[in-house]
């Protein structure tokens, strides 16, 4: 069974690779390369996979899930400038692809019991989203 929790955070970012010139970055990232940054209301959907516990009837305690998301993602990222305030985005370009992968890395160690992390979906806007998952190790 899959369960999904949705949370939101608002953050600013600049999509530019420091190894490239300003002109190259504008060609690669378009308006997102503006050096002063811009922001989004990100929507994050975290999906867990598991079977309901025979005693509690739950795949995972949703209160605990809420705390894990708050501690690892929304706490550190909400109302922040990702490039300056959130590692590893001081050296990794905070594209939606890279943010989704970083969220996976932060969350996955919390779900190694009966419920496993199945998918991370990050909406940068209503019309653009990224799904990230890794096969179970």
């Amino acid at each position, binding site marked *: 069974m899959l369960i999904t929790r949705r949370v939101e955070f608002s953050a600013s970012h600049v*999509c530019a690779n420091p190894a490239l010139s300003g002109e190259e970055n504008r060609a*690669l*990232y378009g308006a997102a390369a503006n050096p002063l940054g811009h922001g989004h209301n990100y929507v994050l959907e975290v999906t867990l996979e598991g079977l309901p516990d025979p005693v509690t009837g739950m795949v995972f305690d949703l209160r605990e899930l809420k705390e894990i998301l708050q501690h690892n993602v929304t706490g550190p990222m909400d109302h922040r400038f990702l490039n300056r305030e959130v590692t590893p985005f001081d050296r*990794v370009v905070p594209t939606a*692809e890279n943010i989704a*992968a970083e969220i996976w890395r932060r969350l996955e160690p919390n779900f190694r019991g009966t419920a496993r992390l199945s998918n991370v979906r990050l909406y940068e806007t*209503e019309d653009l*989203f990224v*799904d*990230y998952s890794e096969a179970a190790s």
Partner: protein
Amino acid sequence: MTRLTRRYRFCASHRLHTAALSDEANRELYGKCNNPWGHGHNYVLEIGVTGTVPLDSGQLVLVDALDELVERSVLREFDHRDLNRDVAAFARVVPTSENVAMEIRSRLLSAWPAEFPKLAGVRLWETKRNIFELTHEEQ
């Protein structure tokens, strides 16, 4: 696995009617959608791509380039058009959303740049309640 999905919109009219059946059988089969005057929808089209994210750019595909491809190969000819009469593919093929989704995929694949990541999904919302999805493997 990283998959990026981009959502587009187009508004078009269509009529579901097949020459293979009688008028009465068409009315029976397609119901309201067989109205001889046609009707329209605000279609929502989701295009998904999948692949390995390049380390230097951190982006799977240049979204502006994907937008340009979809605009050029689909939206420009579908938006604010009558699918049956304005789009050659639907002169003989009934423009059900199943067939519209397949036509969209075929148009995208024939224009797909070699440097793009793999086309991983075409999902077409005819209304908020009717959603049609193809996968690459279905071809």
